[in-house]
């Protein structure tokens, strides 16, 4: 994070930015409204060699490509699973399988992020990858899709490439691209039955999507999660911040939301489009992201710094000796930006999450927009 958001702005410029962002309504440097995303162009299925792929270009020129590859892997037997094969087969058909069988494991998904110029074990890159992976694995619903039978599962490799130099914090871009790539992912059609060694149909046209389409409307019924970057300046909540805006953020959150399809199953097929506003958003994970300001240690005035020969500052007499030194450290000077100190207010955090999840809010809007992308 710190390294990818080096902005060279003076304290005066930062202060100007901070003030204009904390106005009501906030004025953003690029003239967007606080909830507006950067315009983007997207395409899917660009790489025929993958199971699913997508490419997104943001208007500021940042670009990412995601490719999904799947392999069949043998499921490791759990130590406490003492059922014998064959014994259980009959009851599997009829009734719901026991809970242990239905569950997947988080190592069925492997996600890597490549950012040019950064090592793949750079802390920022690893953190990005973790945040994206976490959203996928959060409710266990995703890995359940990868199950083939009791003995085999799909192992999904998600490779995320940032093509452009990292101009802004690439989390929203990478998350949206991953979302589209997963929507476009198809796995070969299974021909074998039960717990046999899996055998697949070699007709790619028959391959079903990982996220199933509604046969009549051809629309996706359930969608992978998206991770949104939200920040707060003063009391204002701002979505999809640019690099400059991030530099003056008080709080930055990465909020992952999923589309909870299970709770609206009934009405879904009947009234396709209008149902969208009734999307039930589900909060999957929240991460705080350290804005650059948090990583800057606040300066200590020379007068209060023991390294400058003022070791006695800690003693009781110091306060009377140098009252002005105390003041300069705490007092905010008009027009000069100081990194915020202390944690975020609980109210602000609540408001951030609320803004994301509210019906018809930004998450809804983003999911609606992504629905417009042709993923077939």
């Amino acid at each position, binding site marked *: 994070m710190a390294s990818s958001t080096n902005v060279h702005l003076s304290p005066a410029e930062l202060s100007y930015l901070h003030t204009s962002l904390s106005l009501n309504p906030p004025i953003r440097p690029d003239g967007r409204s606080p909830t507006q995303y950067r315009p983007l162009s997207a395409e899917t299925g660009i790489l025929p060699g993958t199971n699913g*792929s997508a490419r997104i270009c943001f208007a500021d020129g940042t670009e990412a490509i995601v*490719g999904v590859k799947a392999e069949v892997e043998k499921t490791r037997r759990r130590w406490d699973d003492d059922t014998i094969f064959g014994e259980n087969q009959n009851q599997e058909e009829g009734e719901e399988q026991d809970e242990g069988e239905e569950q997947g494991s988080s190592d069925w998904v492997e996600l890597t992020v490549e950012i*040019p*110029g950064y090592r793949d074990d750079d802390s920022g890159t690893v953190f990005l990858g973790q945040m994206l992976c976490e959203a996928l694995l959060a409710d266990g619903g995703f890995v359940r899709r990868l199950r083939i039978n009791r003995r085999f599962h799909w192992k999904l490799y998600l490779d995320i490439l940032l093509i452009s*130099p990292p101009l802004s914090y690439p989390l929203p871009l990478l998350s949206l691209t991953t979302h589209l790539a997963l929507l476009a992912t198809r796995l070969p059609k299974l021909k074998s039955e039960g717990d046999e060694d899996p055998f697949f149909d070699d007709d790619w046209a028959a391959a079903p999507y990982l996220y199933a389409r509604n046969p009549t409307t051809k629309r996706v019924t359930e969608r992978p999660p998206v991770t949104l970057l939200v920040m707060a300046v003063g009391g204002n909540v701002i979505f999809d911040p640019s690099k400059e805006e991030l530099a003056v953020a008080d709080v930055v959150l990465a909020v992952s939301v999923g589309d909870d399809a299970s709770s609206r199953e009934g009405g879904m097929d009947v009234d396709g489009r209008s149902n969208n506003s009734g999307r039930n958003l589900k909060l999957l994970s929240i991460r705080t992201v350290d804005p650059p300001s948090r990583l800057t240690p606040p300066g200590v005035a020379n007068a209060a710094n023991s390294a400058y020969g003022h070791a006695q500052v800690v003693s009781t007499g110091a306060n009377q000796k140098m009252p002005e030194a105390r003041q300069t450290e705490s007092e905010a000077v008009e027009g000069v930006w100081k990194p915020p100190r202390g944690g975020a207010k609980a109210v602000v955090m609540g408001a951030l999450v609320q803004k994301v999840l509210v019906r018809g809010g930004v998450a809804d809007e983003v999911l609606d927009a992504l629905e417009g992308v042709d993923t077939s």
Partner: protein
Amino acid sequence: MPLDTSTYGLALLRVDGRRWNELRRIHGQIRTQAAADGSSYLEMGHTKVMCVVTGPSEPGPRRGGAAGGASGGAGSGGQSKDAEVVVNIVIAGFSSVDRKRRGRGDKRTLEMQFTLSNTLAATLHTHLFPHSQINISLHVLSQDGSLLAALINAATLACVDAGIPMTDYVTACTAGSTSTYAANDEGADPLLDLNHQEEQELPGLTVATLGESDKVVALVCESRVQISRLEGMLAVGVDGCKQVREILDQVIKAQGRKMILEGTVDKGTGLNDMDLD
């Protein structure tokens, strides 16, 4: 996967139906990426490569060789008189048939980076940009043979797009020979532009030349090959490079024409007689 090369002798057609001197389809695009100084996208058959050039710019803080590039110009961290060409190749995990993850320290990747940065440092006019750095990052999206050649061609396109002065186009191509054993010397044909299958099975080399001349700027051969066949392979490769140059030239001229028509750039004085249709 063993390749049955014996069928070549029957119809003189290769596994993908080409003759010995035919290139695969080459499709190039420049200025694909708005945020970069120069960018390109190149397909050679099923090998797909993207290139992004940043710079020449002030060298950033060095992260302990993190950029993974070999320095083109002599010098320590931008203090040299020549610009440093830093090449960074990312081979996507999904690029090959079986997913293979290559780390940063992969020796083959490092060697390609080194070859590329040396080749480009010799061709770009790096002496015009002292104390600076030219960052070239390449992304391999799909690979089907002739990877190094595709990377060199893509880097050339992107450098032209970035407007970095250079001597001429650096174009690359691969060449191979139809049989691996010595006995069949007369029957062996040189082959142009190997695909992945042929690359696995047959001896091959990658050659890069400068513009329309026969000057070879890079030559990489990683397989055993009969010395008597080398000359033929090289001749075919150099000839292929000229064909590639024509194609890249078309790509750049098409883009230039488009930019003039759109009014992005002014029509130069010498261009009045140029045929703009």
